[in-house]
């Protein structure tokens, strides 16, 4: 019986065993699957967590887009930066819709320019926040294309630049304020001479007007003389007006204005502003201007400030010379690179010690008793914002020379350099 049993149930037992084994295998498989899924899920969660952490500490927002599904995935940070809903499906159009209308075309243009199967694009752009506020962001993306150039996938990050931009703007404003203040201080040096400059036309006007009064009181009126007097009064009044206007332009704290500047005219204006001071200090000025200078672009008032600063410094440097020995030469020529205009202000003062040729441009470095030591530092920052260079040399015989170059730059280059200059300084 005992022997029979296995025979009788052998088949059944085998089936059961197989079934149990299968069951075990299935359970084991299931467990394995679950464990694998579990660890995959954990990995995914870990990655998500890491991404979120990275995202938050770097304030980067990540996103990716697949052309096949047109689905956009964006991290919470990215959605925040781009002003998108915190959840919900995102399409390519949604992403583009977040971009400020003025920048959208530019972004599309950037994308459409094919460079290779995979490339990295970067640009600054504006987005409109949920509250309608405009934010500056930097977007960097990696784009994969098929051989025909169509975009397959794109991924990248966005970072909020508003704060940096705001800081840069603040800094720019401060810089402008400082530039303006040094300009006002510079004009303070001129004030006595400028008052003198205004007193001349005022004197002429008063004398002419009173002469006319006396003439009118006479029995025989000389009409021709009277009209001559009136003509003079008008012309003197206009002259006084011009002096005030030139002064006002320098005193006003307007935003910097980028325009074509005629360097000869600039020099003329500066010399007429400084005329009184030059005369008071017995300084003779000679100018040498090469023919056919190319036009220079820049902020007229700031460039005037630089030139005025250099001319007044030159006068100052010769205060120890005898009254007959105070000459300033101003030379405007084409720089050796043929692409910028060079202006040199040469004096015949004591020159600059070799180790100070660079230091004179440092802020608060001054050799003048009442000087702030900002004039040359500001001048240098103005010139470098214009893409040029300001430097000092000693002349071979005696005296110092200050030179600055002004390349022909575009408005965009100027603004870019201005803000870059500001952030670094």
């Amino acid at each position, binding site marked *: 019986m005992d022997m029979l049993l296995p025979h009788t149930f052998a088949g059944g037992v085998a089936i059961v065993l197989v079934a149990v084994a299968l069951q075990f295998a299935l359970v084991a498989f299931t467990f394995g699957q679950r464990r694998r899924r579990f660890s995959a899920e954990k990995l995914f969660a870990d990655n998500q967590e890491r991404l979120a952490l990275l995202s938050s500490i770097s304030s980067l927002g990540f996103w990716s887009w697949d052309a096949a599904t047109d689905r956009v995935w964006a991290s919470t940070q990215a959605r925040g930066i781009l002003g998108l809903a915190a959840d919900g499906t995102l399409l390519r159009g949604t992403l583009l819709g977040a971009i400020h209308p003025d920048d959208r075309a530019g972004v599309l243009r950037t994308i459409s320019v094919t460079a290779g199967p995979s490339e990295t694009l970067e640009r600054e752009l504006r987005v409109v926040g949920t509250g309608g506020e405009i934010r500056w962001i930097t977007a960097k993306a990696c784009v994969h294309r098929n051989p025909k150039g169509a975009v397959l996938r794109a991924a990248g990050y966005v970072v909020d630049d508003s704060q940096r931009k705001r800081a840069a703007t603040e800094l720019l404003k401060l810089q402008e304020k400082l530039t303006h203040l040094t300009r006002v201080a510079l004009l303070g040096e001129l004030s006595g001479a400028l008052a003198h400059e205004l007193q*001349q036309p005022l004197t002429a006007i*008063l004398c*002419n007007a*009173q002469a006319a009064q006396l003439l009118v009181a006479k029995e025989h009126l000389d009409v021709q003389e009277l009209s001559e007097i009136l003509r*003079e009064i008008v*012309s003197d009044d206009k002259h006084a007006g011009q002096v005030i206007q030139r002064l006002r332009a320098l005193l006003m704290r307007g935003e910097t204005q980028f325009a074509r500047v005629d360097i000869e005219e600039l020099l003329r204006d500066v010399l007429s502003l400084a005329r009184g001071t030059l005369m008071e200090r017995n300084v003779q000025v000679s100018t040498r201007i090469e023919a056919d200078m190319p036009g220079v672009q820049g902020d007229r008032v700031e460039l005037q400030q630089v030139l005025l600063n250099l001319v007044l410094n030159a006068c100052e440097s010769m205060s120890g010379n005898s009254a007959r020995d105070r000459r300033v030469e101003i030379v405007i020529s084409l720089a050796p690179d043929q692409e910028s205009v060079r202006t040199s202000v040469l004096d015949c003062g004591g020159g600059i010690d070799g180790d100070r040729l660079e230091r004179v441009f440092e802020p608060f470095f001054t050799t003048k008793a009442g000087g702030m030591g900002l004039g040359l530092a500001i001048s240098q920052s103005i010139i470098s914002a214009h893409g040029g260079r300001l430097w000092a040399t000693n002349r071979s015989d005696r005296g110092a020379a200050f030179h600055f170059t002004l390349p022909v730059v575009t408005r965009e280059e100027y603004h870019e350099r201005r803000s870059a200059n500001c952030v670094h300084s």
Partner: protein
Amino acid sequence: MNAAVPTVFIVDDVRQVRMALARVLSAGGYQVRSFESAERFLEEQDAEAPGCLLLDICMPGLSGLELQRALVDSPCARPIVFLTGMGDIESSVNAMKEGAVDFLTKPIDDERLFAAVELALRRDAEHRVGQAIRARIQERLETLTPRERQVMTFVIRGRLNKQIAAGLGTGEKTVKVHRARVMSKMGARSVAELVQLGARVGVAIEPALGAGTEALNWRQA
């Protein structure tokens, strides 16, 4: 241009101001000549012409104050009215010390200008009258013989004929003759007048140190 009428010499480097000053002064009835620089004035001025200077302080080249210094004590010195754009105290003090008539700050009112010019012209006229008188006295003095000059010195000092005769070692009668000639040549009617004439041209009245040793002490006016 009338040489006898006093002239206001204007020196200012700014053309408009120069012309306007000339105009208002002409309208005020003055004879005017203007110059664009101190150097120009020195070259072209008529040294003899009576008048005054209206001088700008701040000019390229020779300044107004430098011109004043160059003219002071020269025979063609004239009273100066200064004009200045800046009411600088130091230069105005210096200018007044050197004998400027007035120091006007631009812009100038015509009444103030006329008053200053009037004063300057009056001073010039007075100066010239004094000078003419001195020249006449000088001429008369030069007609005296050396002996007569000696006698005149004694007379001015109030010596009596007897004392003079003793001092010169001559007779009283001779002295009397000399004295009468001195009085007529000098055109003096009394000793007091003679003393005045002498004082005008700087004949010093020193106390006599010893009879006979004194001579006339001439000083050109």
